[in-house]
């Protein structure tokens, strides 16, 4: 690409040891959108969950179109304490079979609630196309990615990119 290159690495984490949570903090508001890429596994089959700005209140919702093994299903949660963009393409003990691509739009505005769109994949378990909502007008300055049981497999990578307005 020429002058239009607007994709910047903000931070990356490669898990090591008994890690079940990764937080990207002090996220600059200088970008337009964020992209989170995850590739790895876990010590048990588990979904990856996300919270913004340390908010553990029931201010999240989610809607997913899922391939659960080989069955297409849909699901919905509202007023929960996290958003989750996977049900079929979850972390599994097969490393690194899982990948996720999560786009967080207009994350730094202070007017609207925040939406994330995710694609989660695991060739052994299924996949998802999902949307998550955080009902807050605060600019997102931190993202916590965690699993409720077990740990990320060592070597799981989580990378946060910023997309800047051209």
């Amino acid at each position: 690409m020429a002058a239009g290159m607007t994709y910047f690495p903000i931070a990356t984490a490669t898990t090591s040891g008994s890690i079940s949570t990764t937080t990207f903090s002090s996220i600059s508001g200088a970008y337009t959108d964020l992209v989170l890429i995850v590739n790895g596994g876990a010590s048990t089959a588990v979904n990856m969950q996300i919270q913004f700005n340390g908010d553990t209140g029931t201010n999240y919702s989610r809607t997913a179109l899922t391939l659960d093994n080989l069955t297409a299903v849909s699901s919905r949660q509202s007023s929960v304490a996290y958003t989750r963009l996977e049900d079929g393409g979850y972390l599994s003990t097969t490393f690194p079979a899982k990948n996720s691509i999560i786009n967080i739009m207009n994350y730094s505005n202070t007017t609207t609630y925040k939406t994330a769109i995710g694609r989660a994949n695991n060739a052994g378990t299924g996949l998802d196309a999902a949307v998550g909502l955080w009902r807050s007008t605060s600019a997102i300055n931190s993202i916590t990615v965690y699993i409720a049981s077990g740990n990320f497999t060592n070597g799981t990578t989580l990378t946060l990119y910023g997309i800047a307005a051209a």
Partner: protein
Amino acid sequence: MAYSYKLIEAKTLTTTTASITFSSIPQTYTDLLVLISARGDAGGQRDCYISFNGSTSNFSNRYMEMSNSLVASGTTARYIGAVSGTTTTANIFSNGAIYIPNYTSSQYKSFSGDYVAENNAQSTQVLTLSAQLWSNTAAITSIGFAPSSGSFIQYSTFYLYGINKS
């Protein structure tokens, strides 16, 4: 601030071509993204298949797709979606996005596929989401695409991008 999203190679077909290959892919990026706009010369839609390093072995997947208004799923190794053919409305090219994280790692390669073959009719359109795995520890140095029969036609495009986390 480093740019992280760079065009490695663009291929625009000037003649009918049975398959395309990105070879000698630099090993200096973290992830790869391939964007496809392709149409085939076969009578109907044809499956589009991916290969790495000249190999068609050790691929597995799960896919979910809407084909002619019906939801389907399956496991067809290397299948990423349907290439528009001559029964598709003229000038419609199918489109795909293939995201490959950690393509140089010494682990298996998990990757994501989104592909659509639209049509101006109530039939012969397919939307495919896929979770893909190449169970090979070699770094990816080449990527190939080919339809199950026939060839890609002139004006089909294949763009390979590199994304770097540092």
